[in-house]
């Protein structure tokens, strides 16, 4: 079965319908033994220092995994760096399949994009619908895991992050992944509500590995992971196009904020951590986020895949102090 690289969440139903295995390149980059070395390698190849480390990590990851010959690149709705990333991969012999989320969330445009993708993979709507049913069953389990996180405190913020983020590709094997989720669910036991600070995490997933652990050590608990949750498509719709239209991440910030504000209410969050990746355009949106959200916001910036630095810890401590 052919492995297809993806740069972010795309309609994976199409890939599974074709009997291929989607591979979220972000996930293999960040779980590699030494992700920082992958970033450095891209810099040795000529990637500028002041470019997002995710992009550099993905570049090296694709080249290091020779069984990946085709990559679906989200050219609209994710990151404009992807364009140059794809071009640098193209000259290394990788086939690039572009996919665009229309900025205005136009139904027909999105449908057209999905159909183009279906054409590339030679599948029809019936096959895709079948995969949606298959994947929704797995997603349901992860929705439950998310619910247990905020309702019962029985799943840690890190596990909430991890299992939701993996829904971009279901780790290449949805049923096996579902079993893993089931095991976590079975092990979870509700904790009485303590005096922990309830936090939401918004923005792209963190590049530093120990953020959740540190927050927990300091008496805070992440009970909402915005983008990761979006990867699980938590929408009750049987229409695949509509599903990817409701998905907030690739569209404008105001659409995302509606979702965030609703979850702040529902989950009773005390504060929000907005993560911004160094050199990422999304950093600019911080000023809108701060203006629009009703709870205190701490903006954290991360550059390379290393552990939290002293300054970031100091800022977290002060933020938790404010919330206490």
């Amino acid at each position: 079965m052919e492995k297809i690289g993806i740069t972010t969440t795309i309609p994976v139903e199409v890939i599974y319908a074709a009997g291929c295995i989607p591979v979220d390149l972000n996930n293999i980059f960040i779980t590699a033994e030494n992700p920082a070395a992958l970033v450095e390698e891209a810099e040795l190849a000529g990637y500028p220092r002041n470019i997002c480390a995710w992009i550099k990590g993905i570049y090296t990851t694709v080249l290091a995994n020779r069984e990946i010959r085709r990559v679906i690149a989200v050219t609209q709705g994710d990151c404009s760096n992807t364009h140059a990333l794809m071009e640098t991969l193209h000259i290394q012999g990788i086939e690039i399949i572009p996919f665009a989320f229309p900025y205005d969330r136009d139904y027909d445009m999105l449908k057209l994009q999905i159909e183009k993708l279906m054409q590339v993979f030679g599948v029809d709507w019936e096959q895709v619908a079948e995969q949606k049913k298959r994947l929704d069953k797995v997603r349901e389990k992860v929705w439950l895991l998310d619910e247990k996180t905020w309702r019962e405190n029985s799943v840690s913020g890190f596990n909430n992050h991890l299992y939701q983020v993996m829904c971009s590709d279901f780790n290449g094997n949805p049923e096996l992944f579902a079993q893993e989720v089931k095991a976590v669910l079975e092990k979870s036991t509700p904790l009485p509500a303590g005096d922990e600070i309830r936090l939401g995490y918004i923005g792209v997933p963190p590049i530093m590995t120990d953020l959740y652990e540190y927050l927990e050590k300091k008496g805070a608990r992440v009970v909402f992971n915005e983008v990761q949750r979006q990867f699980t498509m938590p929408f009750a719709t049987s229409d695949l196009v509509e599903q990817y239209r409701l998905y907030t991440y690739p569209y404008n910030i105001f659409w995302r904020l509606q979702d965030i504000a609703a979850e702040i209410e529902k989950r009773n969050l005390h504060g929000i951590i907005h993560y911004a990746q160094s050199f990422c355009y999304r950093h600019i949106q911080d000023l809108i986020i701060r203006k629009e959200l009703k709870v205190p916001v701490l903006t954290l910036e991360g550059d390379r895949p290393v552990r939290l630095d002293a300054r970031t810890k100091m800022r977290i401590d002060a933020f938790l102090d404010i919330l206490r």
Partner: protein
Amino acid sequence: MIFGFDLGSRYVKLATLAEDSFNFYRYETIEFYKEFGRKEQDSLVIDFARLGFGETGKIISTGYGRNTVQIQGGQDIPEIKAHVYGARWQTGLEDFTLLDLGGQDSKVVLVRKGRLLDFQTNDKCAASSGRYLENMAAVLGITLEELSKYHEDPIDLSSTCAIFGESEIIGKIIEGHSIASLAAGVNYTIFKRIKPMLSQLLCDKIIFTGGVAHNGALKNIVEKEMQVEVIVPQYPQYNGAIGCCVYGGSLLE
């Protein structure tokens, strides 16, 4: 006796409090760890006898180093919290914007009714800190005290980076600007870096602390540009250490 340690990047500041009176000591950070500290397991054991103290007491610490070292037998508190305690104690104020410019860090903190409400810090760049002033004074061949006198007729520096700033100012020296203008330009550069943070968290009084608060020109600039009163407490550099003692002795509330 209460010992309040502010473990800074440049200096370790110590305030001691006994019977309502404070004493202050300052050590070079590297010197301090080499001469008076010893690591035992995960904590730092301080040689109080060697520091010249016959007795020990309650120890509260804060500062940059506190994530890497925990003083044995001591309690550590978040840095910004220590500074807020220090500023409240030193000025008696409960509503203010705290501006703390240290050796490598800049912080702006909004305090209302004595409570920490919001804060901002500089990001991985030392261009608004004491280190930048030290470098620039060295390039200009003047002392920090001299540098701190000028705020009028500043030359324009692009202020992007503490290191590039050096070559930029060398260029200006060659162009023949006066030392006064050059120094004023350096002081203004600091202001430009902190202005966005200050603007967002401004209130009608600014308490200015940290080693850079000794720079009188900068105080003038902030006052003039932000149109608010700027208060430099008696011991700006020991503010964090004082805050530790105040916290340890429950001197406030």
